[in-house]
């Protein structure tokens, strides 16, 4: 399992670490039992543009790198556009992720979606994403993965 240089760059020098005071939206996803928890806070202006985004993450190198790049990618984007960010977009922006780490990029985009929906709900508007499984503290992101390796039976 080898990380790309870009993953290592974001891991070593994570961008936008922290928590926005009085954030317009906040999302926390992940599960401490699995080892990854992410908190994403966003500031949104009257035109629905994300003006700031910060993260806090407990997790591996990929978890930190995917959180970091998501905060960079969404700044300046409209929420309608930002919510479409997919796990593959995140992985592509990082020049790829090892297969066993793809769930980390799901968490990062999920955290963003929960934050956007939090913002919308606060303003009495309809959420855009519906149910986010990883926002449930008991959700196991590893359960959805398939092993491509040989098995011992």
């Amino acid at each position, binding site marked *: *399992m080898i990380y790309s240089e870009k993953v*290592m760059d974001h*891991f*070593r020098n*994570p961008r936008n*670490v922290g*928590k926005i005071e009085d954030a317009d939206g906040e999302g*926390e996803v992940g599960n*401490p*039992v*699995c*080892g*990854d*928890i*992410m*908190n994403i806070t966003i500031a949104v202006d009257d035109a629905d543009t994300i003006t700031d985004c910060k993260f*806090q*993450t*407990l*997790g*591996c*190198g*990929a*978890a*930190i790198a995917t959180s970091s790049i998501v905060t960079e990618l969404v700044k300046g984007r409209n929420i309608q556009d930002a919510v479409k960010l997919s796990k593959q977009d995140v992985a592509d922006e990082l020049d790829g992720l*090892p297969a*066993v*780490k793809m769930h980390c990029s799901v968490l990062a985009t999920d955290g963003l979606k929960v934050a956007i929906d939090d913002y919308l709900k606060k303003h009495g508007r309809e959420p855009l994403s519906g149910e986010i499984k990883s926002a449930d503290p008991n959700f196991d992101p*590893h359960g959805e*993965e398939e092993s491509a390796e040989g098995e*011992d*039976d």
Partner: protein
Amino acid sequence: MGSRYFDHAATTAMDPRVTQAMMPYFTEQFGNPNSLYTLGRDAARALEDARTRVAAGIGAAQPAEVVFTSGGSESDNEAFFSILRKVAPEGGHIITSAYEHDAVLNTAKWLAKHGYDLDLVRPRKDGHVYADDVGALICKDTKLVSIMHSNNEIGAINDIRSIAARAHEAGALMHTDAVQSLGKVPFSVVDLDVDLASFTAHKLHGPKGVGALYLKRGVRFDALIKGGGQETRRRSGTQNVAGAVGFATAIELALADRDSEATRLSALRDRVIDGLTSRLENVQATVTQGDRLPNLASLLVKGVEGESMLLQLDNLGFSVSTGSACSSGSLEPSHVLLAIGVPQVIAHGSLRVSLGRDNTEQDVDDFIEALVPIIEKLRAMSPVYTKMFCGPDAITF
């Protein structure tokens, strides 16, 4: 001297004296030890000489009790398959521990799916497997008990002699995986009264790809690897003469310095533990009671994910190991830590520092200086550190 490599339980560098001893058997002394002409006989002599030296190093009564293998995993597999196919071909009861190396654990689990009854004895919270706990699982159908001499992740050393006595009372055979112990602490197959034991060369500055299975004289055995009947029909395949010579040399070198190194390394190990636990909150040694490997410090660093720690240390040139899920690609944290009752949320932050002959006090001090700010930074980046580990509901082990 001086090295930032702190992962000697994973593997070690070859000692130049080992390399030198092996070289002739790659080049001018390349003969097949099974050939009858001079070149072959010379190779056979070198092989048998190596066998004698390995036998002495593990405390075997006779050189013929040593079977050369490709390493620890093969030795573990041979111990299970070759014994059980002979003494219990139709199935039977086997006991091993829940925190064995995967080479034992996955072999035992495979057998459990194929007609054998398996009981996994749990190590206690102090990190050790107790003879009483093994004894409680033994029944009249128990054929094989396999408990590791020392654990590769947490360094706990088990009382194999007492466990072997329980196995033998019930008529079962006793195997121990001694891969991490050989050359580090006193070890003798005769003193421990085991029937089988696994070893590998590369943990003690020998070559990778060579190991040994101790097979006590008289133990019935049906070879796993069939073929030309080498190793007196116990392990077919042309022997790795250079590897055997390297293994023998490595054992002798390790044993010559063992006691002085054990004293020096245990002081360094405690320096790692004391240095980190005195500088940081929520860091603890995994094992604090009973016998431990002198060179291995296992630490639980709460509120930090192990892979992040490992990669940050690597960035500064330090090599360590972790039992976190994310580091292994297996997605589950270390089965060893879970077996002794470490909560999953803490197991993700485990750190294994395994020291060796090139590590100095200065290296350890540099390591602590490097690691303290890494842990502080990662904890500051975590959304849940304070909530999970600092309040009245703090998660503990």
